[in-house]
């Protein structure tokens, strides 16, 4: 499970925006903007980090509870899957 090569995270106008570099046109309604924890998770995912490690990293970075971190990671990965940003191989 890894973020596909064609998706890049860029800082534009003080927002972290995910851009599909393959797309012929950027869909106005489907632009994904990430907050600080989203950006953090995105970068770890790009490095190929797995779910368990992501949860630990999130806890370490933001000092949140285990249950919250697990929920956040699951939700984030699901969102990326729905958008088609993830490679399926695990």
């Amino acid at each position, binding site marked *: 499970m890894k973020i596909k*090569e*064609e998706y*890049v995270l*860029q*800082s*534009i*106008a*003080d*927002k972290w*925006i995910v*851009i599909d*570099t*393959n*797309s012929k*046109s*950027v*869909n*106005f309604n489907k*632009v994904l*903007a990430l907050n600080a924890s989203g950006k953090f998770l995105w970068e770890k995912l790009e490095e190929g980090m797995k779910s368990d490690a992501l949860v630990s990293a999130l806890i370490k970075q933001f000092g949140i509870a285990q249950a919250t971190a697990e929920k956040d990671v699951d939700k984030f990965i699901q969102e990326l899957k729905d958008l088609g940003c993830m490679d399926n191989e695990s």
Partner: protein
Amino acid sequence: MLCLIADIKTYVPAVGGMVSRCREYQIEGEAHEAELVLNDALYRYELWPGMNENDVAYMESGAQFYVKLLNFDGLMLHASATIIDGEAFLFAGQCGIGKSTHANLLKKLFPNSQLINDDKPALRRLDGKWFAYGTPWSGKNGININTKSPLKAICLLTTRRDRNNIQVADPLRAAAGLISCSTGRGTRERILKLAPLIDHLMKEIPIYEMDSLADDTAARMAYNTMKMG
């Protein structure tokens, strides 16, 4: 032929319709002086079935130019660019959204205005300042003027056409709109060059979004708002 396009010495192969389109941009000099070289050996005729040689030369030279322009702190925007009182006002948006219509309305309101490009003007950031340029890539009607002007503002036209309303663009919609109107997308490498330019553009130039009835009121509203900058 050697041309000066967006203040860049550009070698344009004298192929197809580009000979006449580039006449206004041609400068004295030798091909080896070019800073930016377009190569007709790389024109992809197979990509444009049914198109004649003129059109393929137009599309392919444009495609090469806008990719290479990214190396000169520049981008091409799918937009109509009009100069009024020495400043460039851009209407940007997808095909058929009304860019030309709005440029024509401005022309009617301001007879002294100049439509410098009705399809793909170039924008460049020089010493922290943005300029709009006419280019030989100016769509079907070919309207273009070889000139440059400080960029005043960009108005993204929305698909909503039941009212006149202009506002400072929501940053996310502006980013998405500007990227989708930029002509250098398509690969990771290009996006990595384009995104920082769009970032500068959004921080340095006012970006608006407009729902428009495409009438005189709309044009006046757009101009008055963009003028305030």
